[in-house]
Protein backbone atom coordinates (compact mmCIF):
# COMPACT_ATOMS: atom_id res chain seq x y z
CA UNK A 1 0.00 0.00 0.00
CA UNK A 2 1.44 3.34 -0.94
CA UNK A 3 1.25 6.36 1.28
CA UNK A 4 -1.13 8.29 -0.96
CA UNK A 5 -3.86 5.79 -0.26
CA UNK A 6 -4.23 7.02 3.34
CA UNK A 7 -7.84 8.06 3.88
CA UNK A 8 -7.20 9.39 7.34
CA UNK A 9 -3.92 10.83 8.49
CA UNK A 10 -3.30 12.19 11.98
CA UNK A 11 0.08 13.80 12.49
CA UNK A 12 1.73 14.61 15.79
CA UNK A 13 -1.41 14.94 17.87
CA UNK A 14 -1.03 16.38 21.36
CA UNK A 15 -3.92 16.62 23.81
CA UNK A 16 -3.55 18.17 27.24
CA UNK A 17 -6.21 17.94 29.95
CA UNK A 18 -5.04 20.46 32.53
CA UNK A 19 -1.63 19.13 33.54
CA UNK A 20 -2.19 15.67 32.14
CA UNK A 21 -0.85 14.78 28.71
CA UNK A 22 -3.49 12.46 27.27
CA UNK A 23 -1.81 12.18 23.89
CA UNK A 24 1.74 13.21 23.14
CA UNK A 25 2.78 13.21 19.54
CA UNK A 26 0.57 10.46 18.20
CA UNK A 27 0.60 9.83 14.47
CA UNK A 28 -1.87 7.41 13.03
CA UNK A 29 -3.20 6.63 9.63
CA UNK A 30 -5.85 4.46 8.05
CA UNK A 31 -5.41 3.24 4.48
CA UNK A 32 -8.35 3.26 2.16
CA UNK A 33 -10.53 0.15 2.47
CA UNK A 34 -8.56 -1.26 5.38
CA UNK A 35 -9.45 -2.25 8.92
CA UNK A 36 -7.06 -0.57 11.35
CA UNK A 37 -7.15 -1.31 15.04
CA UNK A 38 -6.06 0.86 17.93
CA UNK A 39 -5.21 -1.11 21.04
CA UNK A 40 -3.55 -0.43 24.36
CA UNK A 41 -4.13 -0.71 28.09
CA UNK A 42 -6.84 1.32 29.82
CA UNK A 43 -6.05 5.03 29.87
CA UNK A 44 -3.67 4.77 26.95
CA UNK A 45 -5.56 7.47 25.04
CA UNK A 46 -7.45 5.42 22.46
CA UNK A 47 -10.85 7.01 23.00
CA UNK A 48 -9.21 10.43 23.26
CA UNK A 49 -7.69 9.91 19.84
CA UNK A 50 -11.11 8.93 18.47
CA UNK A 51 -12.62 12.04 20.04
CA UNK A 52 -9.98 14.22 18.42
CA UNK A 53 -10.43 12.61 15.01
CA UNK A 54 -14.21 13.09 15.08
CA UNK A 55 -14.04 16.60 16.51
CA UNK A 56 -15.65 15.93 19.89
CA UNK A 57 -12.62 17.50 21.55
CA UNK A 58 -9.92 19.61 19.98
CA UNK A 59 -6.24 18.83 20.00
CA UNK A 60 -3.63 21.16 21.50
CA UNK A 61 -1.32 20.51 18.58
CA UNK A 62 -1.20 18.42 15.45
CA UNK A 63 -3.27 18.00 12.32
CA UNK A 64 -5.94 15.71 10.97
CA UNK A 65 -6.23 15.07 7.27
CA UNK A 66 -9.20 13.24 5.80
CA UNK A 67 -9.57 12.55 2.09
CA UNK A 68 -6.46 14.75 1.71
CA UNK A 69 -8.29 17.68 3.28
CA UNK A 70 -7.24 19.36 6.48
CA UNK A 71 -10.04 19.00 9.01
CA UNK A 72 -8.04 19.98 12.09
CA UNK A 73 -10.38 22.70 13.32
CA UNK A 74 -13.69 21.81 11.68
CA UNK A 75 -16.87 21.22 13.71
CA UNK A 76 -17.93 17.65 14.45
CA UNK A 77 -21.13 17.68 12.41
CA UNK A 78 -19.25 18.88 9.33
CA UNK A 79 -16.67 16.11 9.69
CA UNK A 80 -19.60 13.73 9.71
CA UNK A 81 -20.99 15.32 6.56
CA UNK A 82 -17.56 14.84 4.99
CA UNK A 83 -17.96 11.12 5.56
CA UNK A 84 -16.59 10.02 8.92
CA UNK A 85 -19.01 8.52 11.40
CA UNK A 86 -18.31 6.92 14.75
CA UNK A 87 -20.01 4.75 17.32
CA UNK A 88 -19.72 5.13 21.07
CA UNK A 89 -18.27 3.03 23.84
CA UNK A 90 -21.34 3.63 26.02
CA UNK A 91 -24.15 3.08 23.60
CA UNK A 92 -25.80 6.25 22.37
CA UNK A 93 -28.86 5.00 20.52
CA UNK A 94 -31.65 7.57 20.24
CA UNK A 95 -34.01 6.65 23.05
CA UNK A 96 -37.07 8.52 21.81
CA UNK A 97 -37.26 6.75 18.48
CA UNK A 98 -38.00 3.38 16.97
CA UNK A 99 -35.22 1.17 15.63
CA UNK A 100 -36.03 2.19 12.05
CA UNK A 101 -36.10 5.91 12.87
CA UNK A 102 -32.71 5.57 14.53
CA UNK A 103 -31.21 4.24 11.33
CA UNK A 104 -33.04 6.84 9.22
CA UNK A 105 -31.48 9.55 11.38
CA UNK A 106 -28.11 8.17 10.32
CA UNK A 107 -28.95 9.26 6.77
CA UNK A 108 -29.75 12.81 7.88
CA UNK A 109 -27.55 14.43 5.26
CA UNK A 110 -28.01 11.88 2.55
CA UNK A 111 -31.66 12.49 1.68
CA UNK A 112 -32.20 16.19 2.12
CA UNK A 113 -35.27 18.35 1.90
CA UNK A 114 -36.26 21.55 3.61
CA UNK A 115 -38.50 22.08 6.62
CA UNK A 116 -41.00 23.69 4.26
CA UNK A 117 -41.11 20.50 2.21
CA UNK A 118 -42.04 18.55 5.31
CA UNK A 119 -44.65 21.02 6.54
CA UNK A 120 -46.35 21.22 3.13
CA UNK A 121 -45.74 17.51 2.44
CA UNK A 122 -44.44 18.18 -1.05
CA UNK A 123 -43.70 15.34 -3.51
CA UNK A 124 -40.03 15.85 -2.70
CA UNK A 125 -40.77 15.06 0.96
CA UNK A 126 -42.43 11.77 0.07
CA UNK A 127 -39.75 10.79 -2.45
CA UNK A 128 -36.83 11.48 -0.11
CA UNK A 129 -38.51 9.88 2.89
CA UNK A 130 -39.12 6.74 0.87
CA UNK A 131 -35.49 6.61 -0.27
CA UNK A 132 -34.32 7.19 3.28
CA UNK A 133 -36.61 4.48 4.61
CA UNK A 134 -35.49 1.99 1.98
CA UNK A 135 -31.84 2.70 2.71
CA UNK A 136 -32.47 2.28 6.44
CA UNK A 137 -34.35 -1.00 5.93
CA UNK A 138 -31.53 -2.31 3.80
CA UNK A 139 -29.02 -1.54 6.58
CA UNK A 140 -31.27 -3.13 9.20
CA UNK A 141 -31.42 -6.26 7.11
CA UNK A 142 -27.66 -6.16 6.75
CA UNK A 143 -27.13 -6.32 10.53
CA UNK A 144 -30.10 -8.68 10.99
CA UNK A 145 -32.50 -6.37 12.82
CA UNK A 146 -35.27 -6.05 10.22
CA UNK A 147 -37.79 -7.83 12.48
CA UNK A 148 -37.23 -5.34 15.30
CA UNK A 149 -37.65 -2.26 13.11
CA UNK A 150 -40.75 -0.87 14.85
CA UNK A 151 -39.62 -1.48 18.43
CA UNK A 152 -38.54 1.43 20.61
CA UNK A 153 -34.75 1.44 20.37
CA UNK A 154 -34.29 1.01 24.10
CA UNK A 155 -36.29 -2.23 24.12
CA UNK A 156 -33.51 -3.99 22.23
CA UNK A 157 -31.11 -6.12 24.24
CA UNK A 158 -27.62 -4.72 24.64
CA UNK A 159 -25.99 -6.73 21.88
CA UNK A 160 -28.62 -5.69 19.38
CA UNK A 161 -28.26 -2.03 20.35
CA UNK A 162 -24.62 -2.38 19.30
CA UNK A 163 -25.73 -3.68 15.92
CA UNK A 164 -28.26 -0.87 15.69
CA UNK A 165 -25.49 1.68 16.20
CA UNK A 166 -23.54 0.04 13.40
CA UNK A 167 -26.55 0.13 11.06
CA UNK A 168 -27.14 3.78 11.92
CA UNK A 169 -23.49 4.61 11.30
CA UNK A 170 -23.30 3.01 7.85
CA UNK A 171 -26.67 4.43 6.75
CA UNK A 172 -25.02 7.82 6.30
CA UNK A 173 -22.86 6.23 3.58
CA UNK A 174 -19.57 7.21 5.22
CA UNK A 175 -16.11 6.65 3.78
CA UNK A 176 -14.79 5.87 7.25
CA UNK A 177 -16.34 4.55 10.42
CA UNK A 178 -14.66 4.61 13.79
CA UNK A 179 -15.85 1.99 16.26
CA UNK A 180 -15.19 2.59 19.95
CA UNK A 181 -15.05 -0.80 21.70
CA UNK A 182 -17.92 -2.35 19.75
CA UNK A 183 -17.48 -5.71 21.51
CA UNK A 184 -17.66 -4.34 25.06
CA UNK A 185 -20.35 -6.16 26.99
CA UNK A 186 -20.95 -8.77 24.28
CA UNK A 187 -20.68 -12.53 24.83
CA UNK A 188 -18.39 -14.58 22.62
CA UNK A 189 -21.12 -15.58 20.20
CA UNK A 190 -22.26 -11.98 19.76
CA UNK A 191 -18.63 -10.92 19.33
CA UNK A 192 -18.18 -13.41 16.51
CA UNK A 193 -21.29 -12.06 14.75
CA UNK A 194 -19.96 -8.55 15.25
CA UNK A 195 -16.64 -9.54 13.67
CA UNK A 196 -18.47 -10.86 10.62
CA UNK A 197 -20.54 -7.70 10.35
CA UNK A 198 -17.46 -5.47 10.56
CA UNK A 199 -15.66 -7.50 7.90
CA UNK A 200 -18.76 -7.29 5.70
CA UNK A 201 -19.00 -3.53 6.18
CA UNK A 202 -15.63 -3.20 4.51
CA UNK A 203 -16.35 -5.89 1.93
CA UNK A 204 -19.87 -4.91 0.84
CA UNK A 205 -19.84 -1.16 1.27
CA UNK A 206 -16.17 -0.37 0.78
CA UNK A 207 -16.07 1.49 4.08
CA UNK A 208 -12.74 1.95 5.82
CA UNK A 209 -12.83 0.88 9.47
CA UNK A 210 -10.93 2.15 12.51
CA UNK A 211 -11.45 -0.05 15.50
CA UNK A 212 -10.69 0.60 19.15
CA UNK A 213 -11.03 -2.69 20.95
CA UNK A 214 -9.89 -4.75 23.92
CA UNK A 215 -11.02 -8.12 22.63
CA UNK A 216 -7.75 -9.43 21.16
CA UNK A 217 -9.31 -12.35 19.37
CA UNK A 218 -11.54 -9.97 17.43
CA UNK A 219 -8.72 -7.49 16.76
CA UNK A 220 -6.26 -10.12 15.58
CA UNK A 221 -8.78 -11.86 13.35
CA UNK A 222 -10.03 -8.89 11.33
CA UNK A 223 -7.38 -6.13 11.38
CA UNK A 224 -4.93 -5.35 8.61
CA UNK A 225 -2.92 -2.91 10.70
CA UNK A 226 -2.62 -2.50 14.44
CA UNK A 227 -1.38 0.56 16.30
CA UNK A 228 -0.54 0.15 19.98
CA UNK A 229 -0.86 3.11 22.33
CA UNK A 230 0.50 3.33 25.86
CA UNK A 231 0.50 6.43 28.08
CA UNK A 232 -0.51 8.60 25.16
CA UNK A 233 2.25 7.45 22.84
CA UNK A 234 2.48 5.01 19.97
CA UNK A 235 4.68 2.13 21.06
CA UNK A 236 4.21 -0.17 18.10
CA UNK A 237 2.68 -0.45 14.65
CA UNK A 238 2.32 -3.42 12.38
CA UNK A 239 0.38 -6.42 11.23
CA UNK A 240 -1.33 -8.65 13.80
CA UNK A 241 1.58 -11.10 13.61
CA UNK A 242 4.20 -8.38 14.25
CA UNK A 243 2.26 -7.05 17.21
CA UNK A 244 1.76 -10.43 18.83
CA UNK A 245 5.50 -10.98 18.95
CA UNK A 246 6.55 -7.46 19.89
CA UNK A 247 8.27 -7.52 23.31
CA UNK A 248 7.40 -3.88 24.07
CA UNK A 249 3.70 -4.60 23.55
CA UNK A 250 3.83 -7.68 25.73
CA UNK A 251 5.52 -5.61 28.42
CA UNK A 252 2.90 -2.87 28.22
CA UNK A 253 0.13 -5.38 28.67
CA UNK A 254 1.70 -7.74 31.19
CA UNK A 255 4.32 -5.57 32.89
CA UNK A 256 8.04 -6.39 32.91
CA UNK A 257 9.91 -8.48 35.45
CA UNK A 258 11.82 -5.70 37.17
Amino acid at each position, binding site marked *: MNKDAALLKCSDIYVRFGGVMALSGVSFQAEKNSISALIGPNGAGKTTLLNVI*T*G*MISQSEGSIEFKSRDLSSI*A*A*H*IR*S*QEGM*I*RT*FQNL*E*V*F*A*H*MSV*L*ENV*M*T*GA*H*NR*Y*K*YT*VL*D*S*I*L*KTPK*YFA*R*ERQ*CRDAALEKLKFVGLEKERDLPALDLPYGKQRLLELA*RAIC*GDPALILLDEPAAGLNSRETRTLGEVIAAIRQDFGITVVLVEHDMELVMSISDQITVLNFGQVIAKGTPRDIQNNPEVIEAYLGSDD
Partner: protein
Amino acid sequence: MGGKQNIISLAVFIVVAAGFPWILPSEYYISILILSGITAIAVVGLNLLLGFAGQISLGHAAFFGISAYTSAILTTNYGFPVLAGIICGIFLSAIVAFLIGMPALKLKALSLAMATLGFGLIVYIFMNETITLTGGPSGFVGIPRFNIMGYDFYSDLAYYYLVASSLTVVIIISLNLINSRAGRALKAIHSSENAARVMGINVHRYKLFVFVLSAVFAALAGGLYAHYLSFVAPSAFGFHASLQLIVMAILGGMSSVWGGVIGALFLTSMPEFLRIYEELETILYGLILILCMMFMPQGLAGGLGKLAGYVSGKLFRRGLK
Protein backbone atom coordinates in the same frame (compact mmCIF):
# COMPACT_ATOMS: atom_id res chain seq x y z
CA MET B 1 -45.66 5.03 9.93
CA GLY B 2 -47.67 7.33 12.14
CA GLY B 3 -49.17 8.86 9.00
CA LYS B 4 -52.53 7.11 8.98
CA GLN B 5 -52.97 7.46 12.73
CA ASN B 6 -52.26 11.18 12.49
CA ILE B 7 -54.88 11.70 9.81
CA ILE B 8 -57.49 9.86 11.90
CA SER B 9 -56.76 11.81 15.08
CA LEU B 10 -56.72 15.04 13.10
CA ALA B 11 -60.13 14.24 11.57
CA VAL B 12 -61.55 13.42 14.99
CA PHE B 13 -60.14 16.66 16.37
CA ILE B 14 -61.68 18.76 13.59
CA VAL B 15 -65.11 17.16 13.99
CA VAL B 16 -65.05 17.55 17.77
CA ALA B 17 -63.77 21.12 17.59
CA ALA B 18 -66.42 22.09 15.03
CA GLY B 19 -69.25 20.51 16.98
CA PHE B 20 -68.21 21.48 20.49
CA PRO B 21 -69.93 24.90 20.77
CA TRP B 22 -73.29 23.34 19.85
CA ILE B 23 -73.41 20.99 22.80
CA LEU B 24 -72.40 23.58 25.37
CA PRO B 25 -75.13 24.81 27.75
CA SER B 26 -74.19 28.49 27.63
CA GLU B 27 -72.28 31.15 25.75
CA TYR B 28 -69.97 31.47 28.76
CA TYR B 29 -68.35 28.11 28.10
CA ILE B 30 -67.43 29.19 24.60
CA SER B 31 -65.22 31.89 26.04
CA ILE B 32 -63.44 29.25 28.15
CA LEU B 33 -62.95 27.19 25.01
CA ILE B 34 -61.52 30.20 23.21
CA LEU B 35 -58.98 30.81 25.97
CA SER B 36 -58.15 27.09 26.07
CA GLY B 37 -57.59 27.09 22.31
CA ILE B 38 -55.36 30.15 22.47
CA THR B 39 -53.32 28.61 25.27
CA ALA B 40 -53.15 25.32 23.37
CA ILE B 41 -51.44 27.06 20.44
CA ALA B 42 -48.68 28.22 22.78
CA VAL B 43 -48.40 24.87 24.56
CA VAL B 44 -48.14 22.86 21.32
CA GLY B 45 -45.26 25.13 20.36
CA LEU B 46 -43.59 24.81 23.75
CA ASN B 47 -43.97 21.06 23.51
CA LEU B 48 -41.94 20.97 20.30
CA LEU B 49 -39.12 22.58 22.26
CA LEU B 50 -39.59 20.77 25.57
CA GLY B 51 -41.02 17.38 24.66
CA PHE B 52 -39.32 16.72 21.34
CA ALA B 53 -36.03 18.61 21.41
CA GLY B 54 -35.65 18.32 25.20
CA GLN B 55 -34.81 22.01 25.73
CA ILE B 56 -36.46 23.97 28.49
CA SER B 57 -37.76 27.53 28.42
CA LEU B 58 -38.97 29.05 31.67
CA GLY B 59 -39.74 32.36 29.99
CA HIS B 60 -42.09 31.35 27.24
CA ALA B 61 -44.93 33.59 28.38
CA ALA B 62 -42.65 36.51 27.46
CA PHE B 63 -43.02 35.71 23.74
CA PHE B 64 -46.77 35.50 24.24
CA GLY B 65 -46.65 38.91 25.95
CA ILE B 66 -44.27 40.64 23.53
CA SER B 67 -46.58 39.83 20.66
CA ALA B 68 -49.76 40.71 22.59
CA TYR B 69 -48.39 44.13 23.52
CA THR B 70 -46.84 44.81 20.12
CA SER B 71 -50.09 44.15 18.33
CA ALA B 72 -52.13 45.99 20.97
CA ILE B 73 -49.98 49.12 20.74
CA LEU B 74 -49.70 49.16 16.93
CA THR B 75 -53.43 48.69 16.36
CA THR B 76 -54.71 50.94 19.15
CA ASN B 77 -52.22 53.81 19.03
CA TYR B 78 -51.10 53.73 15.42
CA GLY B 79 -54.19 52.47 13.63
CA PHE B 80 -52.59 49.33 12.15
CA PRO B 81 -55.04 46.75 10.80
CA VAL B 82 -55.33 43.91 13.34
CA LEU B 83 -53.84 41.29 11.05
CA ALA B 84 -50.82 43.51 10.37
CA GLY B 85 -50.46 44.12 14.11
CA ILE B 86 -50.42 40.40 14.87
CA ILE B 87 -47.92 39.73 12.10
CA CYS B 88 -45.64 42.47 13.47
CA GLY B 89 -46.00 40.95 16.94
CA ILE B 90 -45.00 37.53 15.64
CA PHE B 91 -42.02 39.00 13.79
CA LEU B 92 -40.78 40.87 16.83
CA SER B 93 -41.13 37.76 19.04
CA ALA B 94 -39.25 35.70 16.48
CA ILE B 95 -36.42 38.21 16.32
CA VAL B 96 -36.18 38.38 20.12
CA ALA B 97 -36.24 34.58 20.32
CA PHE B 98 -33.44 34.40 17.78
CA LEU B 99 -31.29 36.91 19.67
CA ILE B 100 -31.93 35.26 23.06
CA GLY B 101 -31.65 31.70 21.75
CA MET B 102 -28.36 32.35 19.95
CA PRO B 103 -26.31 32.49 23.16
CA ALA B 104 -28.74 30.82 25.60
CA LEU B 105 -29.14 27.54 23.71
CA LYS B 106 -25.44 26.83 24.09
CA LEU B 107 -26.26 26.27 27.75
CA LYS B 108 -27.53 22.98 29.06
CA ALA B 109 -30.43 21.92 31.29
CA LEU B 110 -30.49 24.02 34.47
CA SER B 111 -28.36 26.84 33.07
CA LEU B 112 -30.72 27.15 30.14
CA ALA B 113 -33.65 27.17 32.57
CA MET B 114 -32.02 30.02 34.51
CA ALA B 115 -31.23 32.01 31.38
CA THR B 116 -34.77 31.78 30.01
CA LEU B 117 -36.19 32.50 33.46
CA GLY B 118 -34.10 35.67 33.62
CA PHE B 119 -35.23 36.67 30.15
CA GLY B 120 -38.88 36.21 31.14
CA LEU B 121 -38.43 38.31 34.24
CA ILE B 122 -36.76 41.13 32.34
CA VAL B 123 -39.61 41.26 29.83
CA TYR B 124 -42.11 41.22 32.68
CA ILE B 125 -40.37 44.13 34.44
CA PHE B 126 -40.17 46.02 31.16
CA MET B 127 -43.94 45.68 30.67
CA ASN B 128 -44.55 46.95 34.19
CA GLU B 129 -42.18 49.89 34.08
CA THR B 130 -42.65 51.43 30.63
CA ILE B 131 -45.93 52.97 31.65
CA THR B 132 -46.21 55.46 28.78
CA LEU B 133 -45.87 52.65 26.26
CA THR B 134 -47.64 49.70 27.88
CA GLY B 135 -49.83 51.25 30.53
CA GLY B 136 -47.78 49.60 33.25
CA PRO B 137 -49.26 47.27 35.88
CA SER B 138 -52.82 48.50 35.33
CA GLY B 139 -52.75 47.22 31.79
CA PHE B 140 -53.49 48.37 28.28
CA VAL B 141 -57.12 48.89 27.34
CA GLY B 142 -59.24 49.52 24.26
CA ILE B 143 -57.62 47.00 21.91
CA PRO B 144 -59.78 46.45 18.83
CA ARG B 145 -61.41 43.07 18.29
CA PHE B 146 -59.91 40.88 15.58
CA ASN B 147 -61.26 41.81 12.16
CA ILE B 148 -60.28 41.02 8.66
CA MET B 149 -61.44 42.74 5.45
CA GLY B 150 -64.31 44.44 7.23
CA TYR B 151 -65.55 41.33 9.03
CA ASP B 152 -65.50 41.72 12.82
CA PHE B 153 -65.23 38.61 14.93
CA TYR B 154 -67.60 40.11 17.50
CA SER B 155 -69.57 37.03 18.41
CA ASP B 156 -67.74 34.53 20.58
CA LEU B 157 -68.80 31.77 18.23
CA ALA B 158 -67.04 33.43 15.29
CA TYR B 159 -63.94 34.02 17.42
CA TYR B 160 -64.03 30.42 18.55
CA TYR B 161 -63.84 29.20 14.96
CA LEU B 162 -61.00 31.60 14.26
CA VAL B 163 -59.03 30.18 17.20
CA ALA B 164 -59.95 26.58 16.40
CA SER B 165 -58.75 26.91 12.80
CA SER B 166 -55.51 28.59 13.90
CA LEU B 167 -54.93 25.75 16.35
CA THR B 168 -55.62 23.20 13.62
CA VAL B 169 -53.01 24.79 11.37
CA VAL B 170 -50.48 24.81 14.23
CA ILE B 171 -51.18 21.13 14.94
CA ILE B 172 -50.78 20.16 11.27
CA ILE B 173 -47.48 22.03 11.02
CA SER B 174 -46.24 20.34 14.19
CA LEU B 175 -47.30 16.84 13.17
CA ASN B 176 -45.70 17.20 9.74
CA LEU B 177 -42.54 18.57 11.26
CA ILE B 178 -42.21 15.70 13.73
CA ASN B 179 -42.56 13.10 10.96
CA SER B 180 -39.62 14.42 8.98
CA ARG B 181 -35.86 14.54 9.05
CA ALA B 182 -36.05 17.74 11.11
CA GLY B 183 -38.29 15.97 13.62
CA ARG B 184 -35.86 13.09 13.87
CA ALA B 185 -33.00 15.53 14.30
CA LEU B 186 -34.81 17.18 17.22
CA LYS B 187 -35.52 13.85 18.90
CA ALA B 188 -31.90 12.84 18.34
CA ILE B 189 -30.71 16.01 20.07
CA HIS B 190 -32.99 15.17 22.97
CA SER B 191 -31.33 11.77 23.48
CA SER B 192 -27.70 12.60 22.83
CA GLU B 193 -26.23 15.75 21.42
CA ASN B 194 -22.94 14.03 20.72
CA ALA B 195 -24.51 11.20 18.78
CA ALA B 196 -26.63 13.75 16.88
CA ARG B 197 -23.48 15.65 15.93
CA VAL B 198 -21.88 12.46 14.71
CA MET B 199 -24.87 11.92 12.41
CA GLY B 200 -24.02 15.28 10.83
CA ILE B 201 -26.81 17.18 12.56
CA ASN B 202 -26.07 20.83 13.19
CA VAL B 203 -27.21 20.74 16.81
CA HIS B 204 -27.14 24.46 17.53
CA ARG B 205 -29.01 25.39 14.37
CA TYR B 206 -31.81 22.91 15.03
CA LYS B 207 -32.15 24.05 18.63
CA LEU B 208 -32.35 27.65 17.51
CA PHE B 209 -34.87 26.75 14.83
CA VAL B 210 -37.25 24.99 17.21
CA PHE B 211 -36.82 27.73 19.82
CA VAL B 212 -37.83 30.41 17.32
CA LEU B 213 -40.67 28.26 15.97
CA SER B 214 -42.10 27.73 19.44
CA ALA B 215 -41.80 31.47 20.10
CA VAL B 216 -43.71 32.12 16.86
CA PHE B 217 -46.56 29.87 18.01
CA ALA B 218 -46.60 31.57 21.42
CA ALA B 219 -46.67 34.93 19.64
CA LEU B 220 -49.60 33.89 17.45
CA ALA B 221 -51.43 32.91 20.63
CA GLY B 222 -50.52 36.29 22.18
CA GLY B 223 -52.00 38.19 19.26
CA LEU B 224 -55.24 36.21 19.33
CA TYR B 225 -55.38 36.75 23.10
CA ALA B 226 -54.99 40.55 22.95
CA HIS B 227 -57.60 40.99 20.23
CA TYR B 228 -60.06 38.75 22.03
CA LEU B 229 -59.99 40.24 25.53
CA SER B 230 -59.31 43.77 24.23
CA PHE B 231 -57.26 44.22 27.39
CA VAL B 232 -53.78 43.04 28.34
CA ALA B 233 -51.86 43.35 31.61
CA PRO B 234 -48.34 42.19 32.55
CA SER B 235 -49.64 39.70 35.13
CA ALA B 236 -50.77 37.40 32.33
CA PHE B 237 -47.21 37.16 30.95
CA GLY B 238 -45.07 36.70 34.07
CA PHE B 239 -43.29 33.73 35.54
CA HIS B 240 -46.51 32.16 36.73
CA ALA B 241 -47.82 32.10 33.17
CA SER B 242 -44.60 30.53 31.86
CA LEU B 243 -44.81 27.87 34.53
CA GLN B 244 -48.43 27.22 33.69
CA LEU B 245 -47.48 26.54 30.06
CA ILE B 246 -44.87 24.03 31.18
CA VAL B 247 -47.28 22.29 33.56
CA MET B 248 -49.78 22.00 30.71
CA ALA B 249 -47.18 20.47 28.42
CA ILE B 250 -46.06 17.95 31.04
CA LEU B 251 -49.56 17.07 32.22
CA GLY B 252 -50.86 16.74 28.68
CA GLY B 253 -47.99 14.50 27.66
CA MET B 254 -44.70 15.62 26.18
CA SER B 255 -44.22 12.81 23.71
CA SER B 256 -47.13 13.82 21.50
CA VAL B 257 -48.37 16.93 19.75
CA TRP B 258 -51.85 16.20 21.11
CA GLY B 259 -50.55 16.33 24.66
CA GLY B 260 -50.24 20.10 24.45
CA VAL B 261 -53.81 20.45 23.23
CA ILE B 262 -55.25 18.19 25.91
CA GLY B 263 -53.14 19.74 28.69
CA ALA B 264 -54.19 23.28 27.77
CA LEU B 265 -57.87 22.39 27.49
CA PHE B 266 -57.84 20.45 30.75
CA LEU B 267 -55.98 22.99 32.86
CA THR B 268 -57.76 26.05 31.46
CA SER B 269 -61.23 24.63 31.94
CA MET B 270 -60.71 22.68 35.17
CA PRO B 271 -60.58 25.73 37.48
CA GLU B 272 -63.93 26.82 36.07
CA PHE B 273 -65.53 23.57 37.18
CA LEU B 274 -63.73 23.53 40.52
CA ARG B 275 -64.97 27.03 41.29
CA ILE B 276 -68.12 25.68 42.94
CA TYR B 277 -66.00 24.12 45.71
CA GLU B 278 -64.76 27.60 46.65
CA GLU B 279 -62.09 27.30 49.35
CA LEU B 280 -61.23 23.73 48.34
CA GLU B 281 -60.48 24.80 44.76
CA THR B 282 -56.70 25.10 45.06
CA ILE B 283 -56.38 21.88 47.03
CA LEU B 284 -58.41 19.93 44.49
CA TYR B 285 -56.44 21.47 41.64
CA GLY B 286 -53.15 20.33 43.21
CA LEU B 287 -54.56 16.92 44.03
CA ILE B 288 -55.71 16.33 40.47
CA LEU B 289 -52.27 17.27 39.16
CA ILE B 290 -50.58 14.83 41.54
CA LEU B 291 -52.96 11.97 40.77
CA CYS B 292 -52.62 12.50 37.02
CA MET B 293 -48.84 12.35 37.15
CA MET B 294 -48.91 9.29 39.44
CA PHE B 295 -51.23 7.24 37.29
CA MET B 296 -50.41 8.67 33.88
CA PRO B 297 -46.70 9.42 33.81
CA GLN B 298 -46.96 9.71 30.02
CA GLY B 299 -49.48 12.51 30.52
CA LEU B 300 -53.14 12.69 29.63
CA ALA B 301 -52.45 12.02 25.95
CA GLY B 302 -50.48 8.89 26.86
CA GLY B 303 -53.21 7.79 29.27
CA LEU B 304 -55.96 8.33 26.70
CA GLY B 305 -53.90 6.54 24.06
CA LYS B 306 -53.53 3.54 26.35
CA LEU B 307 -57.24 3.60 27.09
CA ALA B 308 -58.05 3.75 23.38
CA GLY B 309 -55.68 0.86 22.74
CA TYR B 310 -57.33 -1.15 25.52
CA VAL B 311 -60.84 -0.46 24.27
CA SER B 312 -60.07 -1.21 20.63
CA GLY B 313 -58.21 -4.33 21.79
CA LYS B 314 -61.38 -5.50 23.55
CA LEU B 315 -63.61 -4.63 20.62
CA PHE B 316 -61.51 -6.02 17.81
CA ARG B 317 -59.83 -8.87 19.61
CA ARG B 318 -60.53 -11.16 16.72
CA GLY B 319 -59.42 -8.55 14.18
CA LEU B 320 -56.46 -9.01 11.88
CA LYS B 321 -53.97 -7.10 13.97
